[in-house]
């Protein structure tokens, strides 16, 4: 049969295949490009960028768990100006769509970041990391309630014409609500999920391993949880969902597509095999060709057709979130104290 069509579209971004490198695990492409030709990727999502350079958290930053990885990198990055100057031009030259992951601690900061990147050459899209703490909400992450996700999305939408993806946190009561909030705020897509907050305890030294106590769990350990999040988000919104969480093999990626993801991103899997993304692209291709399926897009959400009532999905008609557009400033929790937040 004719070769399978792997192309997918996220917002205005045309990807030649549905596989992206996930934020924070692939740097700015430089290191992995020494190992393989990264122009084969569907898209690259950069390390999280902030307005000012950030030094990151003190070591240790990593802790292996059974089939998982806890990290507390602390958003170490050179800042948006240095990114635009030193990284964007080279990234653009790979000929792969570049999605810049942005983190801010206020709406204003997100908007400024988005404006800075609006005219940067070679930036095709923004992925808004709403897992970072909102200093105007006592350090609670933006991601923690639909209202703040809506506000941040709507604010960034007003200043950017680029493809806008909102990266949802799984550390919420219901991801369907935050997914809908992002959709109503004007997002072109949502990505799910960021890392799950966890803790590691050092029993030798009788103290937490990480200086910030909480750290983000990723890798195969979170895959079933992430699949559920993708299933629920994809059931709640009409915009595409990018599935992330523990993908290491083509099989894993296909499961995410079947659960409703239109594309996938690979994070921790890159550490196990530096060519994981390539292997996944090729594996998806063979899966389609072996089954005579015409296109990767045909897989999206296919498993859902077989789900009964017990599937726990939010049905399409149920709107979980409605933006309130409250004007009061104190509509967020105002508790003090600094966040341990799952920022990487």
């Amino acid at each position, binding site marked *: 049969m004719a070769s399978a069509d792997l192309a997918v579209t996220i917002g205005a971004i045309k990807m030649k295949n549905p596989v992206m490198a996930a934020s924070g695990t692939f*740097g700015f492409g430089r290191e992995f490009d020494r190992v393989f030709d990264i122009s084969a990727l569907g898209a690259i999502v950069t390390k999280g960028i902030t307005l000012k350079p950030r030094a990151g958290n003190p070591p240790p930053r990593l802790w292996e768990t059974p089939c998982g990885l806890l990290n507390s990198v602390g958003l*170490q990055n050179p800042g948006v100006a240095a990114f635009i100057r030193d990284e964007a031009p080279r990234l653009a030259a790979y000929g792969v769509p570049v999605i810049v992951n942005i983190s801010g601690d206020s709406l204003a900061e997100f908007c400024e970041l988005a404006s800075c990147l609006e005219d940067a050459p070679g930036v095709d899209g923004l992925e808004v990391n709403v897992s970072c703490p909102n200093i105007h909400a006592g350090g609670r992450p933006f991601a923690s309630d639909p209202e703040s996700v809506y506000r941040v999305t709507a604010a960034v939408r007003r200043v950017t014409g680029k493809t806008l993806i909102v990266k949802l946190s799984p550390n919420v009561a219901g991801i369907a609500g935050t997914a809908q909030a992002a959709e109503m705020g004007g997002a072109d897509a949502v990505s799910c999920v960021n890392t799950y907050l966890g803790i590691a305890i050092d029993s030798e030294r009788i103290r937490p391993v990480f200086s910030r106590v909480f750290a983000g769990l990723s890798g195969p350990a979170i895959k079933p949880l992430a699949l559920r999040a993708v299933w629920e988000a994809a059931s709640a919104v009409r915009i595409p969902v990018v599935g992330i969480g523990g993908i290491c093999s083509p099989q894993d990626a296909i499961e995410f597509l079947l659960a409703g993801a239109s594309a996938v991103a690979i994070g921790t899997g890159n550490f196990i095999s530096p060519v994981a993304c390539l292997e996944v692209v090729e594996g998806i291709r063979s899966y389609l060709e072996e089954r005579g399926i015409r296109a990767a897009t045909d897989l999206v959400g296919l498993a859902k057709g077989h789900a009964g009532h017990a599937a726990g999905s939010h049905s399409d008609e149920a709107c979980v979130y409605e933006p309130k557009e409250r004007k009061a400033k104190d509509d967020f929790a105002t508790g003090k104290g600094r966040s341990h937040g799952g920022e990487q």
Partner: protein
Amino acid sequence: MGSAPAASTAIVLENRQVGPGCYRMRLENEYIARCAVPGQFVHVRIPGPPLDPLLRRPFSVCQVEPSHGAFLILYQVVGRGTRMLSTLRPGDKLDVLGPLGRGFEMLRVGGGGNEGSVGNNSRESEGGNGIGSVGSGSGTVKVALVAGGLGIAPLIMLSHAIFRSGVGFVFVVGARSGELLAGLDLIPRASCGNALLSGCPANPEPASPGIVQGAHLPPSGCDMATGYTGPCCEVQVVTEDGSVGRRGLVTDALRDVLAGGDIACAYACGPAGMLREVARLGEAFHVPVQVSLEARMACGLGACLGCAVKAREAATRSGRAGYLRVCADGPVFWAEEVDLDGIG
């Protein structure tokens, strides 16, 4: 930047116990045998149930045999990954990623050539703080190598390179007790007819194992029996329990070596406390010190920023404010580049 890292298969040729919990593994991998420079490491995927343990494990390249397409690692069983490695048999396959990291920076002898440079991986080639050329002929220039426990691994390969470049060395090897001394037989020895000094400067392959524990090889430029006038290679053994060689700490012996003058540079690998003391001694005796550091790693390539070590200067050459990456900016650093109080 040195040779690009590659993920490839290595076949176990030999996996021999050389002490309590200490193993020496000889692996066939033409690329690493040809490209690795002293101080670099390989990132090894532990064969086991799929994705368990998840992350690769870093090990220094201890010796290369380019003509056999083989290399050695020397490792201690400390946890699950190393325990699984110790069960491998000849013929088993390992997935290795490498060579990785920046190796040791070598002295150049006699002002000319770059014989003694660690090749294109050298910081000198980037206009960094190379120590340049010292001395004028063999026999006069000496460096010190300081190993604590399995920290000897990268220094063995370095000692061969130093020896070939015509520079002499005093290799101070320490362990808690004599049975934990591993790899002494891999240190090059001058061919001066002495039974203990088998190896030959013209032969970069490791000398056949011999009994040298506790031996003091002859000092500088010895011209015993055969009139050998090559560079000095003196080995001093120190154990904490005095079971072999001098009793005490490896740094006690180093102090005496440095006090004797003539040492142009010291290279150290071992526990954090030892490295701090070596750095302190280097400062006291005005001898530049290079240290090889360890940190928990995920990607091993420089992309995930997980293996951070605090930089001594706020603004580092690499432009990464605050932290350096052990896997890519190191694992070898000049002692003054990093905050050694923060490690271990």
